[in-house]
C-alpha cells in the first residue's frame, strides 16, 4: 500500500477547524450493529492484517508442508511399510494436529493486541462483547482453511487418495474448523490471562505437544500400554482425527462426530465465559 515516496515525513497539513466543526454537528448515531455484523467486522480486521503482513501466513503454509513431509518420510517405512502406504493413514491426522497447533497463535495475537491501546478502544465500544474474540477466530478460520488446503495438496502429490472424494474431504475440513474454533477459546483465555507473548507461547506448547502427540494421529493406540490407551482413546484430538479420517475415507462415523462436536461444545461453554469474564475485568 504505502509507497516509498511518502515515507519521509512532510510538513503536516493543518487541521481544518471549519470542516471539523461541520463534521461534529451531526449528532445522530446509527443503531448499534448486530452481534453477527460486529463479529464479521472484526473478522475483516483480521483479514486486513493478513493483507498487510502476509509473512504471518508462513505458519499456515510452510509449517504444514514441513509437517506432512517430515512425518510421512520419517515414520512411513517403519510404521506402514512405505511412505505412500503410511500417508493414507497419516494425512487426516497430521492435518488435525497441524491445525490444532496453529490455533495457539490466536492467543499470541490476542496478547499482543492487549499490549496496544487499540484493545481499550474496542472495549469502550457499545457492541456485543464477545465480537472482538469471535472476530479473531473468524480470521483464524480462514487461516486454518488455507493450511488444510495446502496440506491436502501436498498429501495428494505424495499419493494420498481420499475415498470420500470432494464431499468427504470438505466435511472433514468443516468438522476440523468447528473443533478448532472451539479449541481456540483456550488460547483467547491464555492470551488475556498471561502477561507476555512469550509466556503465552510457553504455556501453549505445554498444552499442545502432549495433547496432539498423545493421540491416534501417528499410530494405532492398541500398540500402547493400557494406561496410555485410556488417555489417548478419550482425548478430543483422537476423536477429531478419527472422525476426519473416516469422513475423508467416505464413511460417516456418527459416534466420533458426536464426540468431536461434544468436545467443541464443552470447550466453548467452559473457556468462552472465562475468556469473556477476563475480557470484561481486564
Amino acid at each position, binding site marked *: *500500500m504505502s509507497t516509498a515516496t511518502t515515507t519521509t515525513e512532510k510538513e503536516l497539513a*493543518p487541521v481544518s477547524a471549519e470542516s471539523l466543526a461541520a*463534521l461534529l454537528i451531526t*449528532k445522530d448515531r446509527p443503531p448499534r450493529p448486530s452481534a453477527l455484523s460486529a463479529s464479521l467486522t472484526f473478522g475483516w480486521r483480521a483479514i486486513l492484517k493478513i493483507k498487510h503482513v502476509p509473512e504471518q501466513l508462513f505458519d499456515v503454509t510452510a509449517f504444514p508442508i514441513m509437517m506432512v513431509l517430515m512425518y510421512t518420510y520419517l515414520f512411513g517405512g517403519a510404521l506402514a511399510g512405505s511412505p505412500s502406504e503410511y500417508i493414507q493413514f497419516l494425512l487426516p491426522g497430521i492435518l488435525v494436529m497441524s491445525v490444532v497447533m496453529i490455533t495457539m497463535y490466536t492467543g499470541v495475537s490476542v496478547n499482543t493486541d492487549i499490549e*496496544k*491501546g487499540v484493545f*481499550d478502544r474496542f472495549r469502550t465500544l457499545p*457492541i456485543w462483547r464477545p465480537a472482538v474474540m469471535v472476530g479473531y477466530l473468524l480470521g483464524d478460520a480462514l487461516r486454518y482453511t488455507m493450511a488444510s488446503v495446502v496440506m491436502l495438496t501436498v498429501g495428494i502429490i505424495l499419493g494420498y487418495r481420499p475415498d470420500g472424494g470432494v464431499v468427504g474431504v470438505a466435511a472433514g475440513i468443516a468438522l476440523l474448523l468447528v473443533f478448532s474454533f472451539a479449541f481456540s477459546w483456550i488460547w483467547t483465555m491464555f492470551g488475556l490471562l498471561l502477561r507476555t507473548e512469550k509466556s503465552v507461547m510457553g504455556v501453549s506448547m505445554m498444552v499442545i505437544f502432549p495433547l496432539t502427540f498423545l493421540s491416534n494421529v501417528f499410530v494405532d493406540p492398541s500398540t500402547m500400554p493400557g494406561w496410555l490407551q485410556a488417555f489417548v482413546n478419550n482425548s478430543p484430538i483422537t476423536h477429531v482425527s478419527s472422525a476426519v479420517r473416516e469422513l475423508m475415507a467416505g464413511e460417516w462415523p456418527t459416534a466420533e462426530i458426536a464426540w468431536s462436536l461434544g468436545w467443541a461444545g464443552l470447550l466453548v461453554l467452559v473457556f468462552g465465559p472465562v475468556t469473556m469474564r477476563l475480557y470484561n475485568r481486564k
Partner: protein
Amino acid sequence: MSPQAARAGRAAEAPDLAIETAGLVKTFGETRAVDGVDLAVPTGTVYGVLGPNGAGKTTTVKMLATLLRPDGGEAQVFGHDVVREADTVRGRVSLTGQYASVDEDLTGTENLVLLGRLLGHHKRTARERAAQLLEAFGLADAAGKQVKHYSGGMRRRIDIAASILNTPDLLFLDEPTTGLDPRSRNQVWDIVRAVVAQGTTVLLTTQYLDEADQLASRIAVIDRGKVIAEGTKGELKASVGAGSVHLRLRDPAQRPQAEEVLRLALDATVQREPDPVALTARVGSSTGDNAAEQAARALAELARLGITVDNFSLGQPSLDEVFLALTGHDTQADSTADTTEGEAAA
C-alpha cells in the same frame, strides 16, 4: 438551529453533570491507585484533571470509561452508573488514551472504516465519514499508510479522529499531548477547542499546568489517588499564588542576604535551589498585590544593596510549585506511585 441551541435543548432534559463520582476507589494489590475521588464535571466544558505520573489520573479515566471496575464508590456518566449501565455509558463516551488506541497494522482509512462499521454505520457512510475526518485532520495524504508509519503528531490526530467518528457527548483525553512537540501540541489544543465548541464535554488529564490553563474551565488537582484541590482556574491559582520569582545571583556568597531581602519585600517564603546562586519565591499569594510590582520592588532593593542579579524571571506557578504548595511534597517525591500507574496500564 445552531448546535449550541440543540445542545441546550438536550441539556434541559439531561442532568447538568456529565460526570459525577463519589468516593471512587481502585486498588491494585496493596496500592490504592485511586483513593476516594469525588468529581462533578459540568456538561459542555473542558474539565482538567491535573497531576503527576502515577497520581491516579489514568486509572480514574479508565473507570469512568468502563474499562476498569471500581473497587468502591459510585461513578455516573450523564446519570448512568458506569458499572450497572456500562453499555449505555459506552454509547455516549469516547476515549483517547496516552498511547495510540488505533490498530497500527492498519491504514488510517481502514482504522476509521473499521470503527465506523463497529459503531453501526453502513459501509458507504463509514467510508465517507472516514474520508471527511482524514481530510479535516490534515491526514488525507497519509490515509493509505499504515498507522505504524505515522509520526507522533499524526497518531494523536488519527486517534482523536477515531474518537469523534460519532460525535461523543463526553470525550476522555488522557494526556493527549504528552510526548508531542510544541507545534503538534498546539494543533491538538485547536482540535479540543473545536470539539468543545460543538457541545461535547471533555475530560482532559494532563501533567502540564499550562495545558489545563489553556483549555480547561475547571481543574481538579489529583495526587496519590486523591483530589487535593478543585475549582476554576482562577480559584486554583489564587490558592497557589500568582506566580513565582526566579533569581540567579552572580555571587553565591550574597545568597543569604538576597534571601532576606526577598522575604521582606515579597512577604513570602523563599526557597534555596540546589544551584548555589539560585533562589525562588512565590509572590502575590495573600496580599493581593500585583506580582510584577512586588517583584520590581524586590529587584530595586537588591540593586540598592549592591547584590548583582544575573538572571531574573517571573513566571506562572509550575506544576511542581502547585504541588509543593498543595501537598508539601514535589511531584518526584513519590516514585512508588509511578509503578502503580504502570501496572494499571498493563
